[in-house]
């Protein structure tokens, strides 16, 4: 019985939160890695794209709620998400047209593109603040729990409860759908193959008649769609605060590098690796050790939660030291 309790506690406090967080990171890292593969620079504006897009989704959600629309148990934000993606994509395509295209034509060094993305980051950060402010916003409606602690305890008779929030389940389902659609697109469709060809070898792709500008536009749209989805799911799961999306940039970069920059599969794996390490290292394991018959003195917490960014950083350093190309052999040099 105690063993079952320990198992449920691990599920409740480690596996479920880490899986949801990992899925959000994976979606973000997919965007970073796609932009890296096609446009060949690390996009520092990605976190603020997430924030800006989520801000738009929240505004649309409020609009829909004011019209009296409801999705029953599901959050209305899900309905607002496609509209948010379209609006945000239009903006991001605008930034590409006004900012990045110039440097692409000139074949500037990647670091100049990174610098330009810092400028875009500033602008998007300011616009997000203008749009929706800097305060914490909760915009989830509908049901909160799929499984609540009381129900779970009543069903199983265990002392340890298990809760599965709707936002967490939703995150996992939506991420699975997004990944399935993305990989199917990249592997099966003509445009997806063209994107991969362009990422592999620009000159050869040009020779075979692939339109580079179309590929670039497609990349921005897909990356933005993934970023806004990730941002909205993160906002539904935790809450929306513009600054948090800047801070999530580091775990996202770490995830993309761990998997290998430019490798979509790597980005997904990297997201989960970073999330599970972060949660496992910052979780106090005392409760579980007690169930398993140990009597620990301390909390058995390796690092306090304030240092969760240190975990992403250490993973990043380890990968840079021992395997700079990442687990799935991206492009490191």
């Amino acid at each position: 019985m105690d063993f079952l309790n320990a198992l449920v506690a691990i599920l409740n406090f480690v596996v479920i939160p880490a899986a949801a967080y990992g899925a959000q990171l994976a979606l973000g890292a997919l965007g970073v890695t796609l932009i890296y593969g096609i446009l060949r620079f690390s996009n520092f504006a990605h976190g603020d794209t997430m924030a800006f897009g989520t801000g738009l989704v929240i505004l649309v959600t409020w609009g829909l709620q004011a019209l009296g629309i409801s999705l029953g148990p599901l959050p209305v934000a899900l309905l607002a998400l496609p509209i948010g993606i379209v609006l945000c994509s239009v903006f991001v395509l605008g930034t590409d047209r006004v900012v990045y295209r110039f440097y692409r034509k000139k074949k500037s060094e990647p670091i100049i593109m990174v610098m330009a993305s810092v400028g875009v980051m500033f602008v998007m950060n300011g616009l997000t603040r203008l749009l929706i402010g800097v305060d914490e916003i909760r915009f989830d409606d509908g049901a909160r729990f799929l499984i609540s602690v009381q129900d779970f305890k009543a069903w199983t008779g265990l002392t340890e409860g298990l809760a599965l929030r709707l936002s967490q389940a939703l995150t996992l389902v939506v991420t699975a759908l997004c990944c399935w659609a993305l990989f199917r697109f990249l592997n099966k469709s003509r445009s997806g193959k063209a994107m991969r060809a362009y990422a592999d070898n620009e000159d050869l792709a040009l020779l075979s008649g692939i339109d580079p500008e179309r590929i670039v536009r497609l990349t921005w749209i897909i990356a933005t769609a993934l970023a806004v989805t990730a941002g909205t799911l993160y906002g539904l799961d935790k809450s929306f605060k513009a600054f948090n999306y800047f801070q999530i940039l580091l775990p996202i970069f770490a995830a993309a590098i761990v998997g290998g920059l430019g490798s979509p599969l790597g980005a997904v794996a990297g997201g989960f690796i970073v999330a599970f390490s972060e949660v496992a290292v910052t979780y106090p394991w005392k409760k579980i050790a007690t169930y398993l018959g140990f009597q620990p003195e301390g909390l058995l917490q390796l690092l306090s939660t304030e240092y969760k960014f240190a975990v992403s950083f250490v993973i990043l350093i380890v990968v840079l030291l021992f395997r700079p190309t990442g687990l799935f052999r991206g492009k490191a040099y």
Partner: protein
Amino acid sequence: MSNTRQADASSRWHAPVVFLLIAALFVLEGTTSNALFSGSWNSALAILNMGLISAVMALGVNMQWGYAGLFNAGVVGFLALGALGPVLVSTAPVEGAWAAGGPRVLLALAVGLGTLALATQIWKRVKAPLNLIAMPLVLLLGFVLYRAVFDPAVVAIEANNAASAGNIGGLGWPVLLSWPVGALFAAAAAWGVGKVALGLRSDYLAIATLGIGEIIVAVLRNEEWLARGVKNMSGIPRPVPYELDLQNDPGFVAKAAEWGMDPSTASAIWVKLLYAGLFGAVLLGLILLAELALKSPWGRMMRAIRDNETAASAMGKNIKGRHLQIFVIGSAVIGLAGAMMVTLDGLLSPGGFNPLRYTFLVWVMVIVGGSGNNWGAVLGAVLIWFLWIKAEVWGPELMNLITAPLPDGAFRDHLLASAPHMRFVAMGLTLLLVLRFAPRGLVPEK
């Protein structure tokens, strides 16, 4: 980078013109009182002092970016480490803190560093299959030992007079001595990061420094034994007299009356002038050193590496070594700026270390001023700092003007309330415009 640094005709009038523009702005701020300027020398000097410190930061970033093309996205972290210098060296010692856990904390840090060194040696010396087991084992044991020594020491220090102290306290040395110490802290961290992230793709350094910046700020916020965390650390001594002492000094009051000023304004301005002189001297010294270095064979080598790494490498230059060198030096200068900043504030407030403000704004300063040119970075820093501060006033004024035709209501109120955020947009646009249309900045590199 090569394609942004083509040497087109550069006028030698750029720097003086920008300098005059900045001087004019400060004189306007000091003398005219209207919607745009405050008309107070006190406020003009306050902006100038922080502008001079920003100029030191910009010099450091310019060394890394302008001389070597390295993107440091963790300026805020190195700044915060520098700020730790005055706290640990110059604040008054806390009674009983050292006895409570000082030696144990040092021992713990030694254990931590020793573990890392031992792990590195094992990885290098021990043969392949064995080191895969030995190194993680050493790291794990080292971590457990470190926590076993460290945690009780921290609890003991924080329990010591928790309400008003709870930190390890300083040495009580003169504050000017602590500035190089702050620089040293930042340099040490930069050496560690640079050792790992240099020599790989240029973006990797940016991402790694972004991480170290976040972590250093998190450490300052949470390690209360070190600098009281978010409770803020006040009582950092000053290198200049206090306003109150001046006001009580009959000689100073008489002097002020001679100038026709009341003692409180005169003392505030005098203190700020002293700071400005101090910071200006440091800044000029740094510029002198930087210019000499840039003109020396070493400086030519750095620029050669920046402009064509492959060629420089073929000539037998150690690219990674040189990059590490300049990265450490630049970070030390940023650390020095951090130490100067807390000395000016008299307060270390880790809650205020915001990467947008302290990392990316400094970048805007360097890019706008002219990367690769020390004078450009310095002038850009003072100019951008002035505009950043004044934009907080100008933004709402401008928004008021723009929204005047709109009817009063929720929409107009929202726009007016969010006007201060406009300066982020303005800074981003400035960066993008300069990067695109004048990539060599206001004062281009010769």
